[in-house]
């Protein structure tokens, strides 16, 4: 039953990883910006929800909306006021990365100043596990995690395939120069990408607040998972990032059946290295001609 338990835990963790990884992959795939502050977006979303729901006592839907607004605003403003400025003047990939990394550090420290460096949790009875069958404990929140991941991806799929905005965003990812011929503005579309990619982490941040808790430095782990999942899934593939996120969450938990928990986080990077060595294009990577 240990294996079944770890599988259930892995699905829950994997669903959360899939959400954050898809957000990062969306941004990177469509704008080619290495948004190292994606983990900071996750942290902001979590702490804003905590502040509104726990400290201010708002109803959870309102707190979730505030969280989404904060995350979306952060992503859009970072793109508008930092990345766009750099790209107008110099446009170096490395400069944008360093700026993004710096923004992540600033966010981490601001959150530490405001909320302290300790962990905070959103208490909910949903996180208390029930013994479904002897030896298998599942918390109601696991259902919420899977449901929110499925709904989020369904909405994203609908947006990208059934709306004009979605088609424009996909075109941006394919050929940003060509879309200008059709009267579209890459810069404006980029802001939509950051808005959507940032809001995508909000369900994961809220559910993490209720299961694992929040601390100001949690964005680092989120960032590592996002990068690993994007590479394992195939750069430019949203489906790949989501599948890879799920895979990494499953691997991180299932490995506990065989190895000490001390090494579980390393499994993510072992998988990453194996993919780089044997399938560098990732699960759904596309072959390119240079």
């Amino acid at each position: 039953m240990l294996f079944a338990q770890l599988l259930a835990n892995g699905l829950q963790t994997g669903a959360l990883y899939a959400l954050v990884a898809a957000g990062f992959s969306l941004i990177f795939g469509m704008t080619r910006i290495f948004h190292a502050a994606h983990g900071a977006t996750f942290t902001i979303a979590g702490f804003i929800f905590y502040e509104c729901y726990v400290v201010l006592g708002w109803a959870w839907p309102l707190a979730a909306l505030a969280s989404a607004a904060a995350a979306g605003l952060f992503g859009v403003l970072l793109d508008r006021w930092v990345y766009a400025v750099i790209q107008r003047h110099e446009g170096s990939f490395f400069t944008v990365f360093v700026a993004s990394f710096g923004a992540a550090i600033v966010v981490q420290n601001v959150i530490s100043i405001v909320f302290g460096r300790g962990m905070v949790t959103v208490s909910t009875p949903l996180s208390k596990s029930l013994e479904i069958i002897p030896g298998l404990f599942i918390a109601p929140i696991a259902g919420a995690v899977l449901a929110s991941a499925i709904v989020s991806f369904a909405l994203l799929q609908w947006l990208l395939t059934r709306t004009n905005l979605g088609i424009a965003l996909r075109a941006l990812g394919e050929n940003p120069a060509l879309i200008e011929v059709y009267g579209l503005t890459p810069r404006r579309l980029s802001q939509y990408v950051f808005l959507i990619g940032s809001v995508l982490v909000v369900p994961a941040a809220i559910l993490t607040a209720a299961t694992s808790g929040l601390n100001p430095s949690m964005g680092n782990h989120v960032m590592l998972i996002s990068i690993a999942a994007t590479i394992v899934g195939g750069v430019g593939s949203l489906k790949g990032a989501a599948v890879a996120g799920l895979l990494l969450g499953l691997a991180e938990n299932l490995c506990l059946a065989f190895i000490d928990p001390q090494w579980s986080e390393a499994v993510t990077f072992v998988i990453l290295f194996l993919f780089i060595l044997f399938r560098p294009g990732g699960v759904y990577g596309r072959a390119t001609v240079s």
Partner: protein
Amino acid sequence: MKAAGGEVVGSFSIPTTAQQFSGVAARVRDTKPDAVYIATYGNQQVQLVKQLRDNGVSQPLASYSAMSLPSILSLPEAKGLVYTSQQVSLDKNDPLTKRVEEDYKKKYGKEPNMYVLNYYNAVLTFADLAAALEKAGKPVTGENLLAQRKATKNFQFVGATVSFAEDGTVKSPIQINEMVGDGKSKVISTAK
């Protein structure tokens, strides 16, 4: 453990940066222990205790003085957790204990916890040793501090009198505490 009549049925190490413990909880449950001892410190203690309880670990939890953080004392899932600490009698009438307790309460509006007392006592030890060296006209160096520590029989800590073993281990009476909820704990046993 064996000398005390117990047996370690499983041990797991966790990264200090880990925040997800549902898998660890599954492994702990699988070993079917009578009690779970936690030897960690810092931020992850709150999450570890909460997630162990959330994920079906219902056995008694035990730990050491690092658990006596206000955030854990007030955690509903930590109720019943037993932890050891050095014996501290804040109602000792010596001037040091009275002064520290009164000053801390005046400034922070609450009793000092084990972390506060440990750090205070650590600085106090250094101060006492340095003062003794200065009185003897010796320079305050690491070597001299160590020699002075070895030459000093007892140290007056807040709430207790302690001595040091040859290897530097503090020899102090121990007390066993139990978390009773609402940010409080009670002493359930003492040992010399």
